[in-house]
């Protein structure tokens, strides 16, 4: 059982790291600011989410698990908000028709 959990943890954290890498490559390589934001959100949402999921399997008590989930939720909130704010500054007159 613990071997299965450990394997799942390694897989999830590696997948999370992959999304971080993909998000960073997107940040560096995408042509314009809006696409770069799109790349970054992948690291925020899926990267942190998968790492948190992987670590959740290793927690012992409900308090540590709650803290981990809170970290993920707060990152989601901050990421989504900041992305929206930056995107609005970039395009003050709303989305193109």
């Amino acid at each position: 059982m613990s071997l299965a959990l450990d394997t799942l943890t390694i897989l999830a954290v590696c997948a999370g790291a992959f999304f971080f890498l993909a998000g960073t490559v997107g940040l560096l390589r995408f042509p314009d600011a809006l696409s770069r934001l799109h790349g970054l959100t992948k690291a925020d949402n899926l990267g942190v989410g998968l790492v948190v999921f992987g670590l959740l399997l290793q927690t012992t008590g409900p308090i540590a698990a709650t803290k981990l989930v809170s970290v993920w939720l707060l990152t989601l909130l901050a990421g989504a908000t900041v992305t929206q704010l930056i995107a609005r500054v970039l395009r003050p007159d709303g989305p193109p028709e």
Partner: protein
Amino acid sequence: MALDVGLVLFVLGVAVWTVAARDAFSAVIGFVVYGLLLALVWMRLAAPDVALTEAAIGSGLTGGLLLGTSTRLRGTETPATGKKSVTGLRLAAALLCSLASIGLAMIVLLLPEPAPTLAPQAAANMAATGLGNPVTAVLMAYRAIDTLLETVVLLLALLGVWSLTPDRFWGGLPGRGRNADPEGVLTFAVQLLVPVGILIGVHIFWVGSVAPGGEFQGATILAAMWILAAMAGLVDAPRVSRRGLRLMLVAGPAVFFAIGLAGFAMAGAFLAYPEARAKLLILTIEVPVTLSIAVTLALLVAGPPERTPQQ
């Protein structure tokens, strides 16, 4: 090992980048990243208390202050770059910083083996303070006078900022006032985030007696929550001449100083606590100190008053 070496190289790289950055805004961003990396370094050195302080105050709050400053200075910045005097100044600064770094490195490398430490004494006498976190014991008991002076320094910094107020705004309000967009993204996020943040701030303050945390870190988070709400335009800054506000600013240092003086009567020295009531007295100091630090930091970021008291 590889991780540590990588981290050190990364920190040095970001430091060089920050110094070499062309405009102040990029340099500030570099400084914030540098602070966060430094927090990771402290974690690797098993010093979570220092890491928390570095992330909250060194990187977060100072970064915020510097960001505000660089935005204000943007108009004056372009003519200042590229002059000869700037290069000379930079060379002099680089020289002095290198000398300081070399001196520090020499001191660390020439330490006797084993390095002198007060850690065993600090741990051995912790029971007398009633605290479970040795760092808090140092800050609130063994070296309480340093902490008292730090709270006074913060207050002096705020007085420095307020002294920049133009005469007509004296006693007025900092910032631009309430202008929240009720449908805005920021409004929604802030309404969701601030209660959580206040809870985390109080928690970090409260666990400081037994675990990493404490009044400076907790107060920074509380101040950050107010700053967020002010940025979203949901709250207005208070009139700086308001009596209640000034009481909150001085409550921490005043209570600290009063209990310190009472130490003469209770235990025979300034800032000495009688053993039976040490923890209670430390808490009595910590609560108003946290409040004062939070209000001071928030007002530091809010800046000098920019509106008349009537507005």
